[in-house]
């Protein structure tokens, strides 16, 4: 699949250059790196838009409750340069997201890593990667 090539190079680019490549929009005022979250859920919507791409994910937590998450990704321009398009992530996809939570909202975060789990069980990593993520 052609889309695998996109993700392969996106993964390499992200592994090589964590976070330096990602647009800033006052992360510190919005998110707290000391509030890490990791969730696995189903993509509801993906927006490749200004100023930051957004990924909406629905999680069924350990208590069986539905939790709706809103994750900020990097600038759309950075994703476009990696070959992303609006259909690079689709509703119904299963993803695991590592994120820094918003300071004043429990279900909003800044994604550091997004792992797409496809039918073959392959894990493809997008988004921000930080060495030795402490989750």
């Amino acid at each position, binding site marked *: 699949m052609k889309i695998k090539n996109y993700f392969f*190079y996106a993964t390499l*680019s992200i592994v090589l*250059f964590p976070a*330096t490549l990602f647009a800033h929009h006052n992360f510190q005022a919005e998110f707290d790196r000391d509030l890490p979250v990791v969730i696995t859920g189903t993509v509801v919507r993906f927006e490749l838009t200004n*100023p930051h791409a957004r990924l909406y994910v629905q999680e069924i937590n350990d208590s069986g409750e539905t939790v709706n998450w809103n994750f900020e990704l990097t*600038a759309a321009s950075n994703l476009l340069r990696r070959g992303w398009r609006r259909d690079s992530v689709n509703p119904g996809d299963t993803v695991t997201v590592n994120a820094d939570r918003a300071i*004043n909202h429990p279900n909003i975060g800044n994604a550091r890593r997004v792992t797409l789990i496809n039918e073959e069980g392959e894990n493809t990593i997008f988004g921000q990667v930080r060495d030795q993520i402490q989750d």
Partner: protein
Amino acid sequence: MKPLFSRSLVVFIVFAFSASIANAQWPIRLDGVPLSADGSPDLNAPTPRTSDGKPDLSGVWNMIRNTSGGGEQGRPVGEPFEPPPGVPPYATFWDQGFGFENGLPYLPWAREKREERVANKGIENPDSYCLPLGHMQFHTHNQPREIVQSPNQIVIIYEASAGIRQIFMDGRPLPDNDPMEFWYGYAVGRWEGDTLVVETTNFRGDGWVDFYGSPSTDQLKTTERFTRVSYGKMEIDITIDDPGAYTEPFTIRVEHSIMPGDNLVEWVCENEQSTQYFNE
């Protein structure tokens, strides 16, 4: 294909090849780009020149990493790279004093202001309100910028926040009649050999020299020296001279790598997306 794990200018290589592999929506056009024997852009090719013999600074440029740990959201990490002899300390987006042994030479009020801004998580950074970031935040931003050069004017377009700077090259002097204060200041440029020297004054008095909030005042004058040392590399030395905030002028180095044949992509700061997340 050239391996991605090249040791030189890896950032631009990643961008260039990722974008070129991706699709035709954002084509990488190599017309006029000097090529190596293997067909890849020759970053070490000589500096291109305009028809009047001046260095041509035109192109899309990306920030070259200058700390051992790169950066992550919130702060520079690792250690600053040691500059070669005679080269000023490297600038970083978060903290322009990162490469200085004792930090920047703040006046007491400026040091207090910076500490206050750090404590407030930079919420008053113009960036938070989708306002112009200022020279230094733009110089060190990790989104690219494009230089468009003509004989009488050089324009720098910053992808981040769609910033635009005009540098007048027609010999006019800096203003001496205090016309007004500008987000981007009033800039005039001239050539000294192969170096473009840009002097800028008339800044607004509430500037942010870096993301951590090192301040600047309306007394600020910047002198930037742009030298395109090869096709692929730009060196920019910036002298910050602001007696309203610092005890003495200081000079920092920014280095950019070319993104051959690339384009800026629209990036519009949509403030409404983010203000709801600001901690009250």
